[in-house]
């Protein structure tokens, strides 16, 4: 019996479930991180203290976070999505914050000079200038989330991790690869898509500059 005959259907479902977890949690994480990053960049004097505290939480291993969350919330997709979204926040938050702070003050002054309101300055000057950094953060976050989403299988919620966990439990490298290869491909495709997205978002003059 060939591998795909036995596992084919389960693999396709697993890829869909995995992708669903990744897209939902990255989207949530991205929105939260963007808002937080903007807020923190308005108060750099406090952000200097808040950012390191937030980054300490990043050192909590995923299995602890998802494991403890499971004990309280149970076996529901929200457990996975909350945990993954929290981890997706950090890279975007850090890059949004530093990207916004790196915007040269003279541009902001110039915007003020043109009579722009602070909100207009943010959306029309600061965010576009910080966009390369923000996109890089989003890309990192996505790659990590694809990899972390393996942990969904730890709490019985499927995804590609199921193949990896079953493979390790039974010493079966075919199964491990059946989980790992689609997951790596997913990470690569998503990161390429984000690069394409970046082409549309990043202002022309900034393209190519890292």
């Amino acid at each position, binding site marked *: 019996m060939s591998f795909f005959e036995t596992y084919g259907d389960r693999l396709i479902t697993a890829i869909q479930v995995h992708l669903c977890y990744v897209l939902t949690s990255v989207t949530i994480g991205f929105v939260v991180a963007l808002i937080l990053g903007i807020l923190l960049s308005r108060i750099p004097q406090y952000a200097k203290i808040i950012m390191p505290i937030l980054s300490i939480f990043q050192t*909590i*291993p995923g299995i*602890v976070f998802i494991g403890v969350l499971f004990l309280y919330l149970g076996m529901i997709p929200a457990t996975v999505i909350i945990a993954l979204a929290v981890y997706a926040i950090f890279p975007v938050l850090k890059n949004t914050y530093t990207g916004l702070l790196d915007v040269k003050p003279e541009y902001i002054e110039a915007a003020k000079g043109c009579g722009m309101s602070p909100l207009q300055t943010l959306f029309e000057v600061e965010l576009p200038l910080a966009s390369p950094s923000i996109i890089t953060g989003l890309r990192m976050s996505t790659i990590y989330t694809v990899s972390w989403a*393996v942990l969904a299988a730890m709490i019985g919620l499927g995804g590609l*991790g199921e193949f990896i966990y079953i493979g*390790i439990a039974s010493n079966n490298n075919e199964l491990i690869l059946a*989980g*790992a290869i689609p997951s790596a491909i997913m990470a*690569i495709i998503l990161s390429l898509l984000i690069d394409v997205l970046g082409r549309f978002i990043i202002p022309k003059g900034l393209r190519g500059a890292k």
Partner: protein
Amino acid sequence: MDFSLVFEHLYLVLMTVLFSVIVGLPLGVLAYITPSVRKIVLWAVEILQTIPALALLGLIIIALGPGKTTVIVGLVLYSLLPIVHNTYIGLESVDSGIKEAGKGMGLTQFDRLISVEIPLALPMIFTGIRIATVTTIGVAVFATSVGGGGLGAVIYKGIRTQNMELILFGTVALMIMAILFDVLMIWINNRLTKRTSN
């Protein structure tokens, strides 16, 4: 509480960092001096990063058997990206005037690398090593799934028996370890930067 596990974890992390520097530094230099292999090297380390850590360890265990070697090899592959990347970027961004000056003095490419470019790129390289170290502390939790020991064992046991005290002990030990390394290495890096800017 079993503090020997903390040291075991520390051992895994330090070995990983040692070997990723031994492998990563030359790869970064290679990417810098030979443009033809640059893309392949940088691409390869990035692909490695997209493989879930647990799967990577699970595959290596089939080749190498369970135990510390498997864990260290897996973690090394995982921490190559920041080291190779930063070595390459660090060397690339050394001021071209200084590079030319080295050429003008008749230094060979090897001499320039050793005595001019690598020392100047050191702060950047060291930042890569720091990122690799802090990440490894967290990822090494998976070691326990493949017979490598470390703090992951405490955490798994805590989750299995729903013992919050054990989970906290494992997690707090990891966090403290990560913060200590981070702070220590930032401090060393600041000293490095001072030296090089003098």
